[in-house]
Protein backbone atom coordinates (compact mmCIF):
# COMPACT_ATOMS: atom_id res chain seq x y z
CA UNK A 1 0.00 0.00 0.00
CA UNK A 2 2.86 2.34 0.92
CA UNK A 3 6.19 1.75 -0.73
CA UNK A 4 9.22 3.94 -0.14
CA UNK A 5 12.05 3.00 -2.47
CA UNK A 6 15.65 4.03 -1.96
CA UNK A 7 14.89 7.58 -0.79
CA UNK A 8 17.65 10.16 -0.42
CA UNK A 9 17.14 13.62 1.05
CA UNK A 10 19.59 16.28 2.13
CA UNK A 11 19.27 19.90 3.24
CA UNK A 12 22.37 21.79 2.14
CA UNK A 13 25.31 19.77 3.39
CA UNK A 14 23.23 17.87 5.95
CA UNK A 15 22.26 14.38 4.81
CA UNK A 16 18.92 13.42 6.35
CA UNK A 17 17.87 10.24 4.56
CA UNK A 18 20.23 7.95 2.73
CA UNK A 19 18.68 5.10 0.77
CA UNK A 20 15.60 4.44 2.92
CA UNK A 21 13.39 1.62 1.66
CA UNK A 22 10.17 0.65 3.43
CA UNK A 23 7.08 -1.32 2.40
CA UNK A 24 3.80 -1.38 4.27
CA UNK A 25 1.21 -3.98 3.33
CA UNK A 26 -2.46 -3.05 3.03
CA UNK A 27 -4.26 -3.09 6.38
CA UNK A 28 -1.03 -3.25 8.38
CA UNK A 29 0.57 -0.59 10.54
CA UNK A 30 4.29 0.08 10.68
CA UNK A 31 5.93 2.29 13.27
CA UNK A 32 9.06 4.17 12.27
CA UNK A 33 11.05 4.82 15.42
CA UNK A 34 14.34 6.49 16.19
CA UNK A 35 15.91 9.30 18.18
CA UNK A 36 14.93 12.91 17.56
CA UNK A 37 16.38 14.56 14.47
CA UNK A 38 17.09 11.42 12.42
CA UNK A 39 14.62 12.29 9.66
CA UNK A 40 11.42 10.52 10.73
CA UNK A 41 9.20 13.54 10.14
CA UNK A 42 11.02 14.29 6.87
CA UNK A 43 10.17 10.75 5.74
CA UNK A 44 6.52 11.42 6.58
CA UNK A 45 6.53 14.67 4.58
CA UNK A 46 8.10 12.87 1.63
CA UNK A 47 5.34 10.26 1.77
CA UNK A 48 2.72 13.02 1.90
CA UNK A 49 4.33 14.69 -1.11
CA UNK A 50 4.93 17.90 0.85
CA UNK A 51 8.67 17.50 0.26
CA UNK A 52 10.40 16.07 -2.78
CA UNK A 53 13.20 13.53 -2.39
CA UNK A 54 16.57 14.11 -4.06
CA UNK A 55 16.43 10.51 -5.28
CA UNK A 56 14.09 7.55 -4.94
CA UNK A 57 10.36 7.07 -5.20
CA UNK A 58 7.26 6.96 -3.01
CA UNK A 59 4.23 4.90 -4.04
CA UNK A 60 0.84 5.13 -2.36
CA UNK A 61 -1.67 2.53 -3.47
CA UNK A 62 0.47 1.88 -6.54
CA UNK A 63 0.57 5.56 -7.56
CA UNK A 64 3.92 7.28 -7.77
CA UNK A 65 3.82 10.40 -5.58
CA UNK A 66 7.35 11.41 -6.61
CA UNK A 67 6.50 11.39 -10.31
CA UNK A 68 3.43 13.62 -9.79
CA UNK A 69 4.66 16.92 -11.19
CA UNK A 70 1.85 19.26 -10.26
CA UNK A 71 0.08 19.98 -6.99
CA UNK A 72 -3.13 18.86 -8.65
CA UNK A 73 -1.62 15.44 -9.51
CA UNK A 74 -0.26 15.09 -5.96
CA UNK A 75 -3.67 16.04 -4.58
CA UNK A 76 -5.25 13.17 -6.52
CA UNK A 77 -2.95 10.76 -4.67
CA UNK A 78 -3.39 12.56 -1.33
CA UNK A 79 -7.12 11.87 -1.47
CA UNK A 80 -6.38 8.41 -0.09
CA UNK A 81 -4.46 9.86 2.89
CA UNK A 82 -5.46 10.92 6.37
CA UNK A 83 -2.82 12.58 8.55
CA UNK A 84 -2.67 13.15 12.30
CA UNK A 85 -0.01 15.79 12.88
CA UNK A 86 2.30 16.02 15.87
CA UNK A 87 0.52 19.11 17.24
CA UNK A 88 -2.81 18.07 15.63
CA UNK A 89 -2.43 21.16 13.34
CA UNK A 90 -6.08 22.13 13.75
CA UNK A 91 -7.25 25.31 12.04
CA UNK A 92 -7.41 27.70 14.96
CA UNK A 93 -9.87 30.06 13.30
CA UNK A 94 -12.45 27.27 12.95
CA UNK A 95 -14.54 25.53 15.60
CA UNK A 96 -13.95 21.85 16.28
CA UNK A 97 -17.10 21.09 14.29
CA UNK A 98 -15.76 22.99 11.29
CA UNK A 99 -12.34 21.37 11.65
CA UNK A 100 -13.91 17.91 11.42
CA UNK A 101 -16.19 18.95 8.57
CA UNK A 102 -13.38 20.68 6.66
CA UNK A 103 -12.31 17.79 4.42
CA UNK A 104 -15.90 16.86 3.63
CA UNK A 105 -16.69 20.39 2.48
CA UNK A 106 -13.44 21.39 0.84
CA UNK A 107 -12.10 18.10 -0.48
CA UNK A 108 -15.13 15.92 -1.05
CA UNK A 109 -17.42 18.87 -1.84
CA UNK A 110 -20.34 17.72 0.33
CA UNK A 111 -23.02 20.26 1.17
CA UNK A 112 -23.25 21.47 4.77
CA UNK A 113 -26.40 19.39 5.30
CA UNK A 114 -24.85 16.16 4.04
CA UNK A 115 -21.64 16.76 5.97
CA UNK A 116 -23.57 17.47 9.18
CA UNK A 117 -24.70 13.92 9.95
CA UNK A 118 -21.26 12.49 9.17
CA UNK A 119 -19.59 15.00 11.50
CA UNK A 120 -22.03 14.20 14.29
CA UNK A 121 -21.44 10.44 13.85
CA UNK A 122 -17.67 10.87 13.87
CA UNK A 123 -17.81 13.20 16.87
CA UNK A 124 -19.96 10.67 18.76
CA UNK A 125 -17.64 7.76 18.01
CA UNK A 126 -14.60 9.72 19.28
CA UNK A 127 -16.48 11.28 22.27
CA UNK A 128 -16.14 14.79 20.90
CA UNK A 129 -19.81 15.83 20.90
CA UNK A 130 -19.55 18.19 23.94
CA UNK A 131 -16.69 20.12 22.33
CA UNK A 132 -18.05 20.72 18.83
CA UNK A 133 -18.67 24.44 19.29
CA UNK A 134 -15.35 25.12 21.01
CA UNK A 135 -12.27 26.47 19.28
CA UNK A 136 -9.09 24.36 19.38
CA UNK A 137 -7.33 26.58 21.93
CA UNK A 138 -10.24 26.10 24.35
CA UNK A 139 -9.66 22.35 24.74
CA UNK A 140 -6.79 20.21 26.01
CA UNK A 141 -4.09 18.81 23.73
CA UNK A 142 -5.54 15.31 24.26
CA UNK A 143 -8.90 16.42 22.86
CA UNK A 144 -7.14 18.27 20.03
CA UNK A 145 -5.44 15.00 19.08
CA UNK A 146 -8.82 13.30 19.01
CA UNK A 147 -10.18 16.08 16.81
CA UNK A 148 -7.14 15.66 14.55
CA UNK A 149 -7.94 11.96 14.33
CA UNK A 150 -11.59 12.69 13.55
CA UNK A 151 -10.54 15.16 10.84
CA UNK A 152 -8.13 12.61 9.37
CA UNK A 153 -10.66 9.76 9.35
CA UNK A 154 -13.85 11.54 8.31
CA UNK A 155 -13.18 10.94 4.60
CA UNK A 156 -12.45 7.24 5.29
CA UNK A 157 -8.87 7.27 3.99
CA UNK A 158 -7.10 4.09 2.93
CA UNK A 159 -3.90 5.26 4.60
CA UNK A 160 -3.44 6.94 7.98
CA UNK A 161 -0.15 8.71 8.72
CA UNK A 162 0.49 9.63 12.35
CA UNK A 163 3.33 11.89 13.45
CA UNK A 164 4.45 11.52 17.07
CA UNK A 165 1.03 10.69 18.56
CA UNK A 166 2.12 11.24 22.16
CA UNK A 167 3.89 14.58 21.97
CA UNK A 168 2.79 16.90 24.77
CA UNK A 169 0.48 14.33 26.37
CA UNK A 170 0.52 12.93 29.88
CA UNK A 171 0.71 9.11 30.14
CA UNK A 172 -3.07 8.73 30.44
CA UNK A 173 -3.83 10.92 27.43
CA UNK A 174 -0.98 9.20 25.57
CA UNK A 175 -2.47 5.78 26.22
CA UNK A 176 -5.85 7.10 25.15
CA UNK A 177 -4.41 8.11 21.76
CA UNK A 178 -2.96 4.63 21.26
CA UNK A 179 -6.28 3.05 22.24
CA UNK A 180 -7.96 5.41 19.80
CA UNK A 181 -5.62 4.41 16.96
CA UNK A 182 -6.31 0.73 17.66
CA UNK A 183 -10.06 1.28 17.88
CA UNK A 184 -10.07 3.27 14.63
CA UNK A 185 -7.90 0.64 12.96
CA UNK A 186 -10.43 -2.04 13.89
CA UNK A 187 -13.35 0.11 12.77
CA UNK A 188 -11.97 1.55 9.51
CA UNK A 189 -9.19 -0.91 8.64
CA UNK A 190 -6.69 1.54 7.19
CA UNK A 191 -3.01 1.03 6.39
CA UNK A 192 -1.00 2.94 8.99
CA UNK A 193 2.38 4.57 9.40
CA UNK A 194 3.18 5.88 12.87
CA UNK A 195 6.24 8.03 13.49
CA UNK A 196 7.37 7.89 17.10
CA UNK A 197 10.30 7.87 19.48
CA UNK A 198 8.29 6.35 22.29
CA UNK A 199 9.20 2.74 22.98
CA UNK A 200 7.75 0.32 23.80
CA UNK A 201 4.38 2.19 23.87
CA UNK A 202 4.19 2.46 20.09
CA UNK A 203 4.46 -1.33 19.75
CA UNK A 204 0.82 -1.70 20.81
CA UNK A 205 -0.40 -0.10 17.56
CA UNK A 206 2.25 -1.62 15.26
CA UNK A 207 2.34 -4.79 13.20
CA UNK A 208 5.92 -4.00 12.25
CA UNK A 209 8.57 -1.58 13.47
CA UNK A 210 11.45 0.01 11.56
CA UNK A 211 14.22 1.82 13.39
CA UNK A 212 15.90 4.67 11.58
CA UNK A 213 19.31 6.04 12.45
CA UNK A 214 21.78 8.24 10.57
CA UNK A 215 19.44 8.44 7.61
CA UNK A 216 19.00 4.68 7.13
CA UNK A 217 16.81 1.90 8.47
CA UNK A 218 19.05 -0.18 10.70
CA UNK A 219 16.48 -2.72 11.93
CA UNK A 220 13.03 -3.84 10.85
CA UNK A 221 10.64 -6.53 12.01
CA UNK A 222 7.74 -7.27 14.30
CA UNK A 223 7.83 -5.60 17.72
CA UNK A 224 9.03 -8.91 19.20
CA UNK A 225 11.81 -9.20 16.60
CA UNK A 226 12.97 -5.66 17.25
CA UNK A 227 12.97 -6.23 20.99
CA UNK A 228 15.10 -9.36 20.49
CA UNK A 229 17.51 -7.58 18.13
CA UNK A 230 21.17 -7.80 19.11
CA UNK A 231 22.02 -4.54 17.35
CA UNK A 232 23.68 -2.37 20.03
CA UNK A 233 22.01 0.82 18.70
CA UNK A 234 18.58 -0.82 18.88
CA UNK A 235 19.24 -2.08 22.39
CA UNK A 236 20.55 1.30 23.50
CA UNK A 237 17.45 3.04 22.13
CA UNK A 238 15.03 0.43 23.53
CA UNK A 239 16.58 0.66 26.98
CA UNK A 240 17.01 4.45 26.92
CA UNK A 241 20.73 4.33 27.73
CA UNK A 242 22.99 7.30 27.08
CA UNK A 243 26.10 5.15 26.53
CA UNK A 244 26.36 3.31 23.24
CA UNK A 245 26.66 3.91 19.50
CA UNK A 246 23.91 6.54 19.43
CA UNK A 247 25.45 9.86 20.34
CA UNK A 248 23.14 12.43 21.90
CA UNK A 249 23.31 15.62 19.84
Amino acid sequence: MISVRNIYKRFGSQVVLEGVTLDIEPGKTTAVVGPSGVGKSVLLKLIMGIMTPDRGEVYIGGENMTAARTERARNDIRRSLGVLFQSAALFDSLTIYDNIAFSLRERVGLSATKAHSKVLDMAASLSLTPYLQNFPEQVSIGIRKRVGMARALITEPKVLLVDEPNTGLDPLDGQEVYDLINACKNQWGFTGLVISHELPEVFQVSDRVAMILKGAIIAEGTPAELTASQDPAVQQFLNGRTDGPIKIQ
Partner: protein
Amino acid sequence: MGVLTTIEHFGAFIIETTERWGRSWIFLFRSMVALIRPPYRPYLYFSQILQIGVNSTLVIALIGLFTGAVLAVQGEYTLSKFGANAYTGPAVALSLIRELGPVLTALMVIGRAGSAVTAELGIMRITEQIDALRSMAVDPIKYLMAPRLFAGVIAMPLLCGIFNVVGIFGGYVVAVGLLGLSAGTFMSQIESAVALVDIYSGFIKATVFGLIFGWVSCYKGYTCGFGAQGVNKATTQSVVTASVAVLIVDYFLTSVLTRVFMK
Protein backbone atom coordinates in the same frame (compact mmCIF):
# COMPACT_ATOMS: atom_id res chain seq x y z
CA MET B 1 41.98 31.86 -1.86
CA GLY B 2 40.44 35.02 -0.40
CA VAL B 3 39.48 36.30 -3.85
CA LEU B 4 37.95 32.94 -4.74
CA THR B 5 35.89 32.92 -1.56
CA THR B 6 34.63 36.43 -2.26
CA ILE B 7 33.67 35.44 -5.81
CA GLU B 8 31.98 32.29 -4.48
CA HIS B 9 30.01 34.29 -1.93
CA PHE B 10 29.02 36.82 -4.56
CA GLY B 11 27.94 34.01 -6.90
CA ALA B 12 25.95 32.34 -4.13
CA PHE B 13 24.28 35.66 -3.33
CA ILE B 14 23.32 36.19 -7.00
CA ILE B 15 21.94 32.64 -7.31
CA GLU B 16 20.02 32.92 -4.04
CA THR B 17 18.55 36.32 -4.96
CA THR B 18 17.54 35.10 -8.43
CA GLU B 19 15.95 31.99 -6.92
CA ARG B 20 14.04 34.08 -4.39
CA TRP B 21 12.75 36.42 -7.09
CA GLY B 22 11.83 33.49 -9.30
CA ARG B 23 9.96 31.77 -6.49
CA SER B 24 8.03 34.92 -5.62
CA TRP B 25 6.98 35.46 -9.27
CA ILE B 26 5.93 31.82 -9.58
CA PHE B 27 3.95 32.30 -6.35
CA LEU B 28 2.18 35.34 -7.82
CA PHE B 29 1.49 33.50 -11.07
CA ARG B 30 0.07 30.46 -9.22
CA SER B 31 -2.09 32.70 -7.03
CA MET B 32 -3.52 34.45 -10.08
CA VAL B 33 -4.18 31.17 -11.88
CA ALA B 34 -5.84 29.86 -8.70
CA LEU B 35 -8.24 32.83 -8.84
CA ILE B 36 -9.75 31.68 -12.11
CA ARG B 37 -9.76 27.92 -11.54
CA PRO B 38 -12.65 26.12 -9.82
CA PRO B 39 -13.67 25.32 -7.15
CA TYR B 40 -14.69 28.89 -6.31
CA ARG B 41 -15.22 29.67 -2.66
CA PRO B 42 -16.92 33.09 -2.62
CA TYR B 43 -17.28 33.12 1.18
CA LEU B 44 -13.48 33.16 1.52
CA TYR B 45 -13.24 36.17 -0.81
CA PHE B 46 -15.97 38.10 1.02
CA SER B 47 -14.41 37.25 4.36
CA GLN B 48 -11.03 38.66 3.25
CA ILE B 49 -12.61 41.78 1.75
CA LEU B 50 -14.24 42.28 5.15
CA GLN B 51 -10.99 41.82 7.05
CA ILE B 52 -8.67 43.72 4.73
CA GLY B 53 -11.08 46.29 3.34
CA VAL B 54 -14.10 46.97 5.53
CA ASN B 55 -12.16 46.71 8.79
CA SER B 56 -9.64 49.28 7.50
CA THR B 57 -12.31 51.86 6.62
CA LEU B 58 -12.28 53.77 9.89
CA VAL B 59 -8.53 54.24 10.08
CA ILE B 60 -8.37 55.16 6.38
CA ALA B 61 -11.12 57.76 6.84
CA LEU B 62 -9.39 59.21 9.89
CA ILE B 63 -6.02 59.50 8.11
CA GLY B 64 -7.77 60.91 5.04
CA LEU B 65 -9.57 63.55 7.08
CA PHE B 66 -6.42 64.88 8.68
CA THR B 67 -4.34 64.60 5.50
CA GLY B 68 -6.90 66.73 3.68
CA ALA B 69 -6.97 69.18 6.58
CA VAL B 70 -3.21 69.59 6.70
CA LEU B 71 -3.04 69.92 2.90
CA ALA B 72 -5.54 72.77 3.11
CA VAL B 73 -3.46 74.57 5.74
CA GLN B 74 -0.20 74.10 3.85
CA GLY B 75 -1.77 74.80 0.45
CA GLU B 76 -3.45 77.99 1.59
CA TYR B 77 -0.21 79.19 3.25
CA THR B 78 1.92 78.53 0.12
CA LEU B 79 -0.61 79.75 -2.44
CA SER B 80 -1.38 82.94 -0.51
CA LYS B 81 2.26 83.98 -1.08
CA PHE B 82 1.36 84.18 -4.78
CA GLY B 83 -2.08 85.59 -4.22
CA ALA B 84 -3.54 82.32 -5.45
CA ASN B 85 -5.24 80.97 -2.34
CA ALA B 86 -8.41 80.48 -4.38
CA TYR B 87 -6.68 77.41 -5.77
CA THR B 88 -6.43 75.72 -2.37
CA GLY B 89 -9.31 73.40 -3.33
CA PRO B 90 -7.62 72.02 -6.48
CA ALA B 91 -4.30 71.76 -4.60
CA VAL B 92 -5.94 69.60 -1.95
CA ALA B 93 -7.99 67.52 -4.39
CA LEU B 94 -5.27 66.89 -6.97
CA SER B 95 -2.67 66.03 -4.33
CA LEU B 96 -5.06 63.55 -2.78
CA ILE B 97 -6.53 62.00 -5.91
CA ARG B 98 -3.32 61.69 -7.92
CA GLU B 99 -0.78 60.92 -5.23
CA LEU B 100 -1.46 60.94 -1.54
CA GLY B 101 -4.72 59.00 -1.65
CA PRO B 102 -3.33 55.86 -3.30
CA VAL B 103 0.05 55.98 -1.54
CA LEU B 104 -1.13 56.71 2.00
CA THR B 105 -4.01 54.26 1.67
CA ALA B 106 -1.56 51.56 0.55
CA LEU B 107 0.87 52.33 3.37
CA MET B 108 -1.90 52.27 5.96
CA VAL B 109 -3.39 49.00 4.66
CA ILE B 110 0.07 47.42 4.52
CA GLY B 111 0.71 48.49 8.11
CA ARG B 112 -2.67 47.38 9.41
CA ALA B 113 -3.72 44.38 7.33
CA GLY B 114 -0.47 43.35 5.59
CA SER B 115 1.29 42.62 8.85
CA ALA B 116 -1.79 40.70 10.06
CA VAL B 117 -1.95 38.62 6.87
CA THR B 118 1.75 37.74 7.08
CA ALA B 119 1.57 36.90 10.77
CA GLU B 120 -1.56 34.76 10.30
CA LEU B 121 -0.08 32.80 7.39
CA GLY B 122 3.29 32.56 9.17
CA ILE B 123 1.66 31.04 12.25
CA MET B 124 -0.29 28.66 10.02
CA ARG B 125 3.02 27.66 8.43
CA ILE B 126 4.90 27.01 11.68
CA THR B 127 1.99 25.17 13.32
CA GLU B 128 1.71 22.84 10.29
CA GLN B 129 -1.76 24.12 9.36
CA ILE B 130 -0.59 24.75 5.79
CA ASP B 131 0.87 21.22 5.66
CA ALA B 132 -2.47 19.97 6.98
CA LEU B 133 -4.28 21.70 4.13
CA ARG B 134 -1.97 20.08 1.61
CA SER B 135 -2.35 16.68 3.26
CA MET B 136 -6.12 17.06 2.80
CA ALA B 137 -5.61 17.72 -0.93
CA VAL B 138 -6.62 21.36 -0.54
CA ASP B 139 -4.28 23.72 -2.39
CA PRO B 140 -3.16 26.39 0.12
CA ILE B 141 -2.39 28.80 -2.70
CA LYS B 142 -6.00 28.61 -3.80
CA TYR B 143 -7.52 28.41 -0.34
CA LEU B 144 -5.42 31.00 1.48
CA MET B 145 -3.49 33.18 -0.95
CA ALA B 146 -5.89 33.80 -3.84
CA PRO B 147 -8.67 35.28 -1.63
CA ARG B 148 -6.21 37.65 0.08
CA LEU B 149 -4.69 38.75 -3.21
CA PHE B 150 -8.16 39.34 -4.66
CA ALA B 151 -9.27 41.24 -1.54
CA GLY B 152 -6.21 43.51 -1.78
CA VAL B 153 -6.89 44.33 -5.44
CA ILE B 154 -10.59 45.00 -4.81
CA ALA B 155 -10.37 46.77 -1.45
CA MET B 156 -7.45 49.10 -2.14
CA PRO B 157 -9.12 51.28 -4.83
CA LEU B 158 -12.33 51.40 -2.79
CA LEU B 159 -10.46 52.48 0.33
CA CYS B 160 -8.55 54.98 -1.78
CA GLY B 161 -11.87 56.43 -2.94
CA ILE B 162 -12.99 56.81 0.69
CA PHE B 163 -9.65 58.39 1.59
CA ASN B 164 -10.01 60.94 -1.23
CA VAL B 165 -13.60 61.90 -0.44
CA VAL B 166 -13.00 62.23 3.29
CA GLY B 167 -9.71 64.04 2.61
CA ILE B 168 -11.41 66.63 0.40
CA PHE B 169 -14.05 67.05 3.09
CA GLY B 170 -11.29 67.63 5.68
CA GLY B 171 -9.68 70.19 3.38
CA TYR B 172 -13.06 71.87 2.86
CA VAL B 173 -13.74 72.14 6.60
CA VAL B 174 -10.35 73.73 7.26
CA ALA B 175 -10.19 75.96 4.17
CA VAL B 176 -13.79 77.19 4.34
CA GLY B 177 -14.54 76.89 8.04
CA LEU B 178 -11.24 78.02 9.55
CA LEU B 179 -9.29 79.89 6.89
CA GLY B 180 -12.24 81.81 5.49
CA LEU B 181 -12.15 80.71 1.85
CA SER B 182 -15.40 80.83 -0.08
CA ALA B 183 -17.18 77.51 -0.23
CA GLY B 184 -18.22 78.15 -3.83
CA THR B 185 -14.69 78.98 -4.92
CA PHE B 186 -13.29 75.90 -3.16
CA MET B 187 -15.71 73.51 -4.84
CA SER B 188 -15.93 75.14 -8.26
CA GLN B 189 -12.13 75.28 -8.60
CA ILE B 190 -11.95 71.57 -7.76
CA GLU B 191 -14.62 70.85 -10.34
CA SER B 192 -12.78 72.70 -13.08
CA ALA B 193 -9.27 71.46 -12.19
CA VAL B 194 -9.86 67.76 -11.56
CA ALA B 195 -10.28 65.74 -14.75
CA LEU B 196 -11.48 62.16 -15.06
CA VAL B 197 -7.94 61.04 -15.99
CA ASP B 198 -6.72 62.18 -12.57
CA ILE B 199 -9.24 59.87 -10.97
CA TYR B 200 -8.37 57.00 -13.35
CA SER B 201 -4.67 57.28 -12.67
CA GLY B 202 -5.25 57.32 -8.91
CA PHE B 203 -7.38 54.21 -9.08
CA ILE B 204 -4.91 52.41 -11.37
CA LYS B 205 -2.19 53.13 -8.83
CA ALA B 206 -4.36 51.90 -5.95
CA THR B 207 -5.14 48.67 -7.83
CA VAL B 208 -1.44 48.00 -8.47
CA PHE B 209 -0.65 48.78 -4.83
CA GLY B 210 -3.39 46.32 -3.81
CA LEU B 211 -1.65 43.66 -5.87
CA ILE B 212 1.71 44.47 -4.26
CA PHE B 213 0.09 44.33 -0.81
CA GLY B 214 -1.45 40.89 -1.43
CA TRP B 215 1.60 39.47 -3.17
CA VAL B 216 4.20 40.54 -0.61
CA SER B 217 2.18 39.89 2.54
CA CYS B 218 1.04 36.43 1.39
CA TYR B 219 4.44 35.39 0.04
CA LYS B 220 6.29 36.45 3.19
CA GLY B 221 3.80 34.58 5.38
CA TYR B 222 3.78 31.48 3.19
CA THR B 223 7.59 31.25 3.16
CA CYS B 224 7.98 32.14 6.84
CA GLY B 225 10.93 30.64 8.75
CA PHE B 226 10.82 28.59 11.92
CA GLY B 227 9.42 29.64 15.28
CA ALA B 228 8.28 32.93 16.71
CA GLN B 229 11.42 34.59 15.40
CA GLY B 230 10.57 33.42 11.87
CA VAL B 231 7.10 34.99 12.12
CA ASN B 232 8.59 38.18 13.58
CA LYS B 233 11.12 38.43 10.73
CA ALA B 234 8.55 37.64 8.04
CA THR B 235 6.11 40.26 9.36
CA THR B 236 8.77 42.98 9.52
CA GLN B 237 10.08 42.09 6.05
CA SER B 238 6.55 42.05 4.68
CA VAL B 239 5.73 45.58 5.87
CA VAL B 240 9.10 47.03 4.86
CA THR B 241 9.24 45.32 1.46
CA ALA B 242 5.67 46.17 0.52
CA SER B 243 6.01 49.81 1.68
CA VAL B 244 9.27 50.35 -0.20
CA ALA B 245 7.86 48.59 -3.28
CA VAL B 246 4.79 50.87 -3.22
CA LEU B 247 6.94 54.00 -3.13
CA ILE B 248 9.26 52.79 -5.90
CA VAL B 249 6.44 51.56 -8.13
CA ASP B 250 4.59 54.82 -7.44
CA TYR B 251 7.37 56.82 -9.09
CA PHE B 252 7.39 54.69 -12.23
CA LEU B 253 3.59 54.52 -12.42
CA THR B 254 3.32 58.29 -12.00
CA SER B 255 5.82 58.82 -14.82
CA VAL B 256 4.09 56.37 -17.14
CA LEU B 257 0.52 57.43 -16.34
CA THR B 258 1.34 61.11 -16.65
CA ARG B 259 2.81 60.51 -20.12
CA VAL B 260 -0.04 58.25 -21.21
CA PHE B 261 -2.97 60.29 -19.90
CA MET B 262 -1.64 63.81 -20.25
CA LYS B 263 -0.85 63.55 -23.96
